[in-house]
């Protein structure tokens, strides 16, 4: 069971605050000290990180934070995670309850990944299990990955105008394979709008990571 916030020590509260405030120089040494010297339960340190990322996500949704904060937050999380995860494994713990699965990738012909990575990060910190299958993903790879991973939502990303046709082809292949009823499809990227959504046959589009999270929450029945 996660330790309730009211039972956190002052230092634990401080870690959450520093992470949420982008104070990397102070936050990382403290997190490492918790894990390596003070032998704090690594799952608890990850809980503190998650609490900090909740604040980061809210500030992003409220327009206080932008991409640079998400990128730095993601990197701080990765750094702490790299230290904590071997300790979690050694202790034999780890399964985390999530709202559901999202598979995401950039469609074939397009190599852009920043938007996709931000959406992945935002879904992750909002409690979704996300599998990112990379860029320039062939149609068949999407189909194989969907069969194996069984996601509730598939996210197709693309920045170039050629991605309109790649998305249409990919979604068309989901229909042709008779698998479309098993999940919802959302699309996103620099040029995506309602015209492109209609053209590709996607269920919905989003113009930013907040909208992607809202779509997944809505489809999976998660309270806002």
């Amino acid at each position, binding site marked *: 069971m996660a330790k309730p916030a009211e039972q956190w020590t002052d230092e634990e509260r401080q870690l959450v605050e520093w992470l949420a405030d982008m104070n990397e120089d102070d936050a990382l040494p403290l997190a490492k000290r918790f894990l390596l010297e003070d032998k704090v339960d690594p799952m608890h340190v990850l809980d503190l990180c998650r609490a900090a990322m909740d604040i980061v996500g809210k500030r992003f949704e409220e327009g206080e934070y*932008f991409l640079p904060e998400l990128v730095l937050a993601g990197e701080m999380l990765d750094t702490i995670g790299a230290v904590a995860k071997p300790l979690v494994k050694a202790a034999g713990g780890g399964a985390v309850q999530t709202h559901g699965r999202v598979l995401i990738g950039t469609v074939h*012909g397009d*190599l852009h990944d920043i938007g996709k990575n931000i959406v992945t990060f935002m879904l992750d910190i909002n409690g979704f299990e996300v599998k990112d299958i990379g860029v320039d993903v062939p149609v068949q790879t999407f189909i194989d990955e969907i069969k194996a991973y069984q996601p509730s939502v598939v996210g197709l990303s693309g920045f170039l105008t050629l991605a309109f046709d790649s998305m249409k082809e990919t979604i068309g292949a989901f229909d042709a394979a008779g698998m479309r009823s098993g999940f919802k499809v959302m699309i996103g990227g620099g040029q995506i709008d309602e015209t492109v959504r209609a053209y590709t046959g996607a269920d919905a589009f989003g113009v930013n990571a907040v909208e992607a999270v809202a779509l997944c929450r809505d489809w999976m029945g998660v309270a806002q």
Partner: protein
Amino acid sequence: MSDTSPARTMIGPYEQTAAAKAAYDARFERLLACARLEQPDRMPVAMQSFFWPATYGGITYKELMYDYDKAKKVCFDVVAEFEPDGVYPLLMGTNMGRSLELLDFKQLQWPGHGVGDMQPFQYLDREYMKAEEYDDFLFDPTGFYLHTYLPRVAGAFAGLAKLPDFPGLHYFRLVGGIRPFALPEVRESFEQIVAAAEETNRFFANHVDWVQKIGAAGFPLINGGNSIAPYDFIADYFRGATGMMKDLFRHKDKLKQVLDKAAVFIARMTIANAKAAQHPIVFIPIHWAPDAFMSPKQFEEFWWPSFRRLMITLIEADLIPMPLWEADCTKRLEVIKDIPPGKCIYWFERTDMLKAFEVLGDRVALRGNLSPSLLTTGTPDQVDAAVKQLVDGVWRKGGKLILDGAFGIPDETPTPNVRAMFDAARKYAG
């Protein structure tokens, strides 16, 4: 003089008739009048694209990259058919495949090299300068370029990493210090660079010939040279997107110093290129200004100051900056308004043009912005309606609008939609 026939003008090898000259002058004046915030005789229409001329002319994107003759033909044909008032230097954006090969250029994949023959090029966003190299760049940019940056971004320059530090070559030290020039890898690099430069001369001569040919037919370029915002220069070509975003927290002071330095040599380069091209309008694609990319505070602290300084320097050199504000920059409008009136053309991609006109109408000419999704997947009737909407909302209300796509004509656009764009401009705005 006994000859009373109309004056013949030669533009390079091409004869420009008196009618073509008048048409050229009228078109160019439309662009300049807009920039001065004066009323032109009709709404000008621009033509910019990367690979759409190949789509139009039935050649592959790869041919547009590599074949000088085919590329020149399709890029002439699109101009001759649609009669734009200003044309982007179409070959400069695409036709350099052979030069890129010889340079072993690593920052881009292009048709025939890394992506398919019918796919557009893709920039490879990487860290081409490490965070710990800021000091090297700041201390001696040229040395950093020679020894580190150029060998990283183009294989032809690999041997230059072995060159000596030039500061320090003095008196007898000059004699001893030049020995690296005799190294086989340095010689090989120089040979490759010379071969690439000779190819670039052929590519450039072809571009000049095309400019003369469209000029003789009555069509001016909309811009001569290009430039870049200092922040985008460092983010795109040195630090990479995520590296740059982290630098806003980790290396903010050094980043600002580099931006200040970059603004100076970008301005020098831009002014020299514009003078060589004999064209006042400078195209500046803007990548990192969009509302979503950084906070208003970060924008005003990191992005805007060095760019504003660059624009003012260009204006003082009698140039007309024409930034293309990519994506949605609605929240930036009040900030980017801070420039002298009648000196710039602001091209907007996804920013609502009516809103841009409301905020900036008395400050800059506007360019754009038919949506790429409309141009590529819509019908000619929908394109017609979208042009009418811009004409009614901006042009008829006194806005100095140069009509164009949101970032020009997307590569996949069906030709009837381009025709609809040009026809609708004539139908609704002269």
